[in-house]
């Protein structure tokens, strides 16, 4: 196995003085499905945002595939977001004016992928997440579980190295949650995509290859 990412002593202090991350160090192998367990406010979202290039650390080092990420270089961060990561959110965050397939295609527009190509890739992924019958539905016509499946397909559409999931089952009932977790496990196994899943749900975390626990911005053994 090769190292996908490593964090060393990552700090993030907000302007109001809150230390969201207080020296976090984590390593992740390629193809691993890691869950990060912590209460709300423990810093797990901040960790995901930094890994996804949406936030920047105030100290420490973040490396992907052995190379340090330079958070000051906007172009590098944009390319990092486009090429390496896919996001899944608690609120699903689908665009309400677009159908399921258009939502899945959307990230590819910023990557300059031609329309026909986008369409076929999105269709394959929607089939894989079990929504082949609902590709022309709008988000409001889909259940929570279905919306999250669309979001998973969207996270995968740009062939990322890692999917960063922030409380992916936080808005779903337990039966649906189980289905979503199974889907992520299945995709991880079949496609070899790494998953980094932030959750406060111990049952969900238990299905990961490895569990990291975070509290008050520090990793707990």
């Amino acid at each position, binding site marked *: 196995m090769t190292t996908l990412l490593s964090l060393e002593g990552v700090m993030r202090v907000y302007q109001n003085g809150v230390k969201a991350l207080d020296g976090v160090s984590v390593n992740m192998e390629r193809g691993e499905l890691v869950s990060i367990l912590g209460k709300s406010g423990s810093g797990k979202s901040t960790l995901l945002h930094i890994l996804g290039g949406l936030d920047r650390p105030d100290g420490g080092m973040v490396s992907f595939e052995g190379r340090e990420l330079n958070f000051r270089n906007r172009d590098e961060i944009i390319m990092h977001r*486009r090429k390496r990561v896919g996001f899944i959110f608690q609120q699903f965050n689908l665009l309400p004016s677009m159908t399921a397939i258009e939502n899945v295609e959307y990230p590819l527009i910023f990557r300059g992928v031609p329309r026909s190509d986008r369409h076929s890739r999105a269709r394959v992924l929607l089939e894989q997440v079990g929504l082949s019958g609902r590709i022309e539905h709008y988000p409001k016509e889909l259940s929570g579980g279905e919306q999250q499946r669309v979001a998973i397909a969207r996270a995968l559409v740009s062939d990322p190295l890692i999917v960063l999931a922030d409380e992916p089952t936080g808005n779903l009932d337990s039966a649906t949650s189980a289905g979503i977790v199974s889907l992520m496990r299945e995709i991880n196994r079949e496609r070899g995509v790494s998953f980094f899943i932030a959750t406060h749900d111990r049952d969900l975390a238990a299905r990961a290859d490895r569990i990291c626990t975070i509290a008050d911005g520090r990793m707990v053994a």
Partner: protein
Amino acid sequence: MSAMLLDHLTLAIRRLKTRKVRVLLTVLGIAIGIAAVLGTVSLGEGIRMQAVETIRASSDLTLIEATPGNLDGTSYLITPSSVEHIRSVPYVTASSAILKDSYASQHQTYLPVIGADDEEISKVLDLRVETGRMYTSGSAEAVLGADLGEYLRRYEGMQIGSPFPVMVREYDDEGRPRDREIAITPVGILSPRDDRYDSALILDRELVAAEKSGQQGFDAVLIRTGDHLEVAEVAGDLRELGFSAGGAFEQIEAVNRFMDVVILIFAIFAGVSLVVGGLMIANTMMISVYEQTREIGISMALGAAEGDVMRMVLLECLLLGIMGGVAGIAASLAFSSVLNVVGRPLLLSRLGGEFSGLFGDSLSVITPPMLIAGLGIAIVLSLLSGIYPAYRAARLDPIEAMRS
């Protein structure tokens, strides 16, 4: 690249569709601004065209009178060699060097005298003799303008073919007039032409020169050009040669200068409504950026760069501008035709029949370049108005934006 732009355009149209009413109001705002500017400019252009037509119809536009002038501190007299020079100016079709003087009849009627070569002046002024014949060169014969001939015949007993004494008015050293009598023979009266030559006495140039001792060169050169469009060019050339150039065309130049100022002032006032239109776009886009904060944040998380976000906002502005511009053009065309169909008869009925020559067939004139300019202004305005909202959108923090 263009396919990608098309994708962004499709998305922008869809976003606009989600707020139809506000888009409609904004588009109306721009349209009214554009229509107001185009409407006032077209009205001004219409008035300009009518004024020029009126002058053109009533005056001899292709005639220029070149007189001695000044250029860079040097005086330029009209000498035989400068007459040759003037003849070689492009578009000059005929010319006649003239001497001017003023005589008086025995009853003290003022007689403006023009001394010229008979053939040259006939050609330049297109003289038509109504009664009698043209004078011959080297003689003391003369032709009279229609008004002058009529007057002298009626009140002073002048007869065609009979000698008629006239006074050459000179002034002595103390400035007192001193008249000297000479005899000329009127041989013809010209057709009426509605200009100052109707009251002129036209003689052979040698005769006038002999009576006007001590002058070098000529007083003026009358010049004929091909058509009224060439006049300005010839006048420009003459001025460059150091001569003054005058004629009815100067009225058109004056009207054009005046109308340029009037139209500019009109347009500035109408432009205020354009500024309002621009502020409306800025406002609409600020609200729309605010409303779409979450979508923008999501887009950034999904890989949209700041430039992509700016482009999203500016494309919406571009679409608003194009719609507003097209609607404004349509409104101004409608306004203009209403003005011509309804406004013109109304105005004429108020002013009375004698003004029917004014406002020939249209009160308001819209030209294709004006329409293109209208659309261009709408587009530029909308993009300018979108810069700040676009900048604000691009600077959003994706995490904060997604939380909203």
